[in-house]
């Protein structure tokens, strides 16, 4: 599965599990307006670490934190081993 597909799958799975209404997943969607709260994002980051073997949030600063879903996917694409 591509990084993009893994990310999108986790957003949908966690939204369903946490009973959150997810905004349409477009690249310009602002993460904090996606309908998911910090706890949901935390679970997504943990699941992606298991699936992709990376956690770009824990790496030392180089890039800025992602603001949109597009940034988030890129954040992982650049970090993927």
């Amino acid at each position: 599965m591509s990084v993009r597909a893994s990310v999108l799958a986790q957003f949908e799975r966690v939204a369903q599990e946490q009973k959150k209404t997810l905004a349409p997943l477009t690249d310009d969607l602002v993460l904090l307006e996606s309908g998911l709260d910090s706890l949901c994002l935390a679970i997504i980051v943990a699941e992606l670490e298991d699936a992709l073997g990376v956690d770009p949030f824990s790496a030392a600063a180089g890039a800025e934190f992602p603001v949109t879903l597009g940034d988030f996917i890129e954040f992982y694409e650049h970090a993927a081993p």
Partner: protein
Amino acid sequence: MWDAVRAAGALAERALWGAEASVRLGELERGSSLGGRLEELRGRSVLVATGDQLTAALALIELDGVARRLVLCPPDLPRKVVPFVMATAAVDAVVSDRDALEAGAASVGTFVTCSARLAPASSEPAGSHHTEWILLTSGTTGVPKLVVHTLASLAGPIDGDRLLTVPAVWSTFYDIRRYGGLQILLRALLGGGSLVLSSAAESTADFLIRAGARGVTHLSGTPSHWRRALMSPSAHRIAPHYVRLSGEIADQAILDHVRACYPGARIAHAFASTEAGVGFVVDDGLAGFPASLLTQRGAEVELKVEEGSLRIRSARTAIRYLGSSGEPLADRDGFVDTGDIVELRGARYHFVGRRGGIINVGGLKVHPEEVEAVINGHPQVQMSVVRTRKNAITGALVVADVVLRTAPDSAESGRVAELEREILQRCRDALPRHKVPAAIRFVRFLGVAGTGKVVRQHA
């Protein structure tokens, strides 16, 4: 407190800005948030149970020195524990911006409404009491602990934290009814500054825009608050001179990210807890704290490490716990055990977790035993251990290792998935969201120590 607020000067220019209403400090010279009923609260044990942070702040300013005791209700205090809190603190009056029933205080004799729409106050109230300030902190069994402070223990000066050269506009992601937020309220009020209050009803983006519009100079929050802020499109709407992280472990990644976003700011991370007070403030941009802090002579705060955990003695530790349990807050020498386990690496101590495995999810404490009790209630579960998994968004997540009574063989993967769903559903029905395990791992056995207790790791 009012005398000290006034002594800090420039009342007409200073303000408390809430999300919905604001009050200039100068207005408090002739105005009362308590509808002119302050004298009814003299000498009483007063529960301050407001929905709004601004009304709470106004009530606290007026009531310090007048009430015998002030009990600060945090915003998410479950209604069912209010009677316990009121009985433990011998509450005989309630101040709220809601009605008595909503405040969970229907049975109390004196109920005073507070409001950001000030009523004329006839005369300056005279202070008559050394008011006790009671802060609530989470306990192991789901009922809060009541921690006694005074204005002096809450607001005493700390070395390395004297920084105000400009009129500061403080703000905090914290609620001011919690220790971390109350620190910022008191710094603003007593240090000659103003304060932008956060609101639970407001998004991070809107809060940052509002704080930016007020020209916020000093902003504090947990690492989790800051991670959220850095992910907001409004992160650059503020240009703080001073950024403070506390309440959770500040790792190197978050310190670096904050530095990258606000290159001009002084970035400090502080250790503080409701019981131990402020332990230290470090601003060298590195995670952990210098071991030299333990050997400083004549310091206002003394630190030591014993049995792996950080202990603090200063004039800023809490006085005692309220209630009948009789649990001492400090040891015989006056040191408070923070329960935070530290490890010496080179010349610095680093935080590695909490004694007893307490998990900090985005600033909210989780006691593993509470979650294990729910999981162990499932008829197929023999035992479980709940532990922490490090997380870059909330600092930590809750995960569980579960031993089943009869291990399903590998051919029964469908049954395993079903059991996982059942256990998680149980947790969701019984616990707040942050306490529900993010993952369950089925294991064949768990380590059991000589004491007969499940082995818990610190981190």
